[in-house]
């Protein structure tokens, strides 16, 4: 609740600031203000999203979204801890980004046409390919989403999942009653208390919900997947330099996995690797970092902070996490997945 109210105030303050201050944004401004501030303002989900963003008892942030913020902070500032995490519900996330309240939105935000063109924000890449599905109690006895006629369905208010859901039911001539809550947390509570029959969200979120609700055997994800969701970090469109930095930080993490660079061996490989690709990525040769307006050790710092893409996935969402999400489409291209990096040359 506190977080919710705080977000409201951040949003309100942001709107007022946007209205009364003259801020002319130019290329490179975001990076300059991050450096001047010495902090990256990074928007993540509410801090209770298992696997995505959680705040532990030692007040330390963990999760997939959090790790991506760390990688960008390490690339830009050389220090993965110089971050102010701003927990945001999807309802306020884009407005906060537009008004300058955050530099980077590393939330589970799906790339859609309307957001891209009408909200004028950019996705420099995709760090998660996810699909929207339905989570139901096994005791409900539902085997397929086609049986959900007349069901009450929990969904996040203002999300694109809300739109996918309405489309799917309209397409199949079925009826449903939405129970639109503001946060995933409230959705999970509503599912648990039986306010709704099923919970519609992306698989990573459903897996997180199951691990949080406990008793994984009581729950079932229905076989129908109703959408393909390219999810990625979001930046403002007016600063193409910062967009490049965020995009190439993600590319560097993916390339690192392909080149078998890990958090553990990165320093050793920097000193000893003879592969020209590894040398270019880690700044031994070439000046890719300088061309981005960063140090040549940008990618090295990012990998040192969070490991390569695969390590980041497994630690937070995959087999080394309580969620145990299958990697599926998020495997590298040479392992039947969709993850690939443009060439580092």
């Amino acid at each position, binding site marked *: *609740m506190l977080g*919710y109210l705080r977000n409201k105030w951040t949003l309100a303050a942001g*709107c007022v600031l*946007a*209205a*009364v*201050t*003259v*801020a*002319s*944004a130019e290329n490179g401004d975001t990076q300059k203000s991050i450096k001047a501030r010495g902090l990256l303002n990074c928007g993540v989900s509410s801090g209770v999203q298992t696997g995505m963003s959680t705040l532990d008892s030692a007040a330390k942030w963990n999760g997939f979204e959090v790790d991506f913020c760390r990688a960008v902070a390490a690339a830009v500032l050389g220090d993965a801890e110089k971050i102010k995490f701003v927990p945001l519900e*999807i*309802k*306020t996330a*884009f*407005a906060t980004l*537009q008004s300058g309240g955050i530099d980077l939105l590393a939330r589970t935000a799906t790339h859609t046409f*309307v*957001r891209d063109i*009408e*909200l*004028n924000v950019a996705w420099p890449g995709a760090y998660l390919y996810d699909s929207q599905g339905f989570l139901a109690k096994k005791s409900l006895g539902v085997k397929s989403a086609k049986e*959900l*006629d*007349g*069901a*009450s369905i929990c969904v996040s*208010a*203002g*999300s694109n999942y*809300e*739109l996918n*859901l*309405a*489309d799917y*039911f*309209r397409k199949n001539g079925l009826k*449903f*009653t*939405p*129970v*639109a*809550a*503001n946060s995933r947390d*409230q959705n999970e509570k*509503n599912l648990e*208390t*039986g*306010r709704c*029959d099923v919970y519609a969200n992306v698989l990573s979120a459903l897996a997180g919900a199951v691990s949080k609700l406990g008793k994984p055997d009581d729950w079932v994800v229905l076989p129908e997947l109703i959408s393909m969701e390219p999810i990625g970090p979001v930046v*403002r*469109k*007016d600063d193409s330099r910062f967009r490049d930095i965020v995009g190439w930080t993600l590319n560097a993490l993916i390339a690192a996995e392909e080149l078998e660079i890990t958090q553990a061996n990165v320093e050793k490989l920097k000193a000893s690797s003879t592969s020209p690709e590894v040398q270019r990525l880690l700044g031994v040769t070439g000046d890719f970092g300088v061309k981005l307006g960063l140090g040549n050790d940008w990618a090295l710092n990012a990998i040192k902070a969070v490991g390569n893409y695969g390590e980041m996935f497994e630690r937070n969402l995959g087999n080394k996490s309580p969620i145990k999400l299958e990697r599926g489409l998020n495997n590298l291209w040479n392992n039947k997945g969709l993850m690939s990096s443009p060439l580092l040359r």
Partner: protein
Amino acid sequence: MGWVFQALLVVALAWVAHVAIGNLYDNLAARGLKLGFDFLWQEAGFEIAFHLVPYTSSDNYWRVFLVGITNTLLVTAVAIVFSTILGFTIGIAQLSGNWAVSRAARIYVEIVRNLPQLLHILIWYNVALRALPAPRVAIGVGDMVYLSNRGVFLPALTSDRPGLLVIAILIAVIAALALFRSLTSYAERTGRAVNAWLPSLAVLVLLPVLAVALTGTQVSVSLPQLKGFNFIGGWALVPELTALVFAMAIYNAAFIGELVRASIEAVSKGQREAAAALGFGWWWTLRFIVIPQAVRVLLPPLSNQYLNILKGSSLAVAIGYPDLVGVFTGISINQTGRAIEIVGMTMAVYLAISLLIGALINLFNHMTRIVER
């Protein structure tokens, strides 16, 4: 000399407005955003759980706006009615000669008004959800009313001409009220005993029945029935609505109770003693001596409390009731990115409803003022 400062103030205000609007346009242009109301005709694409006006996901944002307004008006109106009834009861109970009753009312006021309204709403929402059974094991009252964690399901009147039915009922209510008033004023004028209730009630019931019979309108009662996951048919009140109404009625009744107590105490003691001396009983004293005078003291702060109920209804967003702030300022802004237009429209709606409530109370105030002879 005074007009110079007034002119300067006007110029300064105009300058501030000019700078603010100029900055708004500059900033929107710098972020590549545009202003305009064309988005209102776009398809919304999302479903809304509870709506009084017909709505589906293929309707546009203008329809979402109307759904939001009617949902806000509904919760405000119902909360005003219930909090007024409860508030008057609490207010009068506080002045009761019965020690236990007045203490209980006092404790109610002190506890309820010192807890934040948001807390009331969250408590009621979570209590209502957790305490009630699932639809398949819902609590049924005579196969007509069902209570479950999906809401309260009531029998509903359905008709092939719902517009005609609504208009007929409205006309009947107005006619019945007019008849009641003219009969009572006739009784007061002539001193004859006239039963005003029976003819008024007859008009209230017979007019709609006559309208239905003459026009051949189909009217049937739809009962809620369990089918699949939920109840189908009847009228469904979602738990978000019931929790919100409960919480707001209980919270605001504490304030209204205080207003009622204070305005009754503002009527001088001599008035009551005079009434007693004339042989008035407890109810007559209250009805003909105290309340008419107390109402004049009560109305201005009461209208203020009603406005608080209207504005407080926007807390609905915390539990996901689809009021104007929830569906329009919340979901619609996120789906369209038109924050400035949507916030502007929402502000205009709240302002308009507030002014309307204020005007109605002023009218009532005017009607009940002391007539000087």
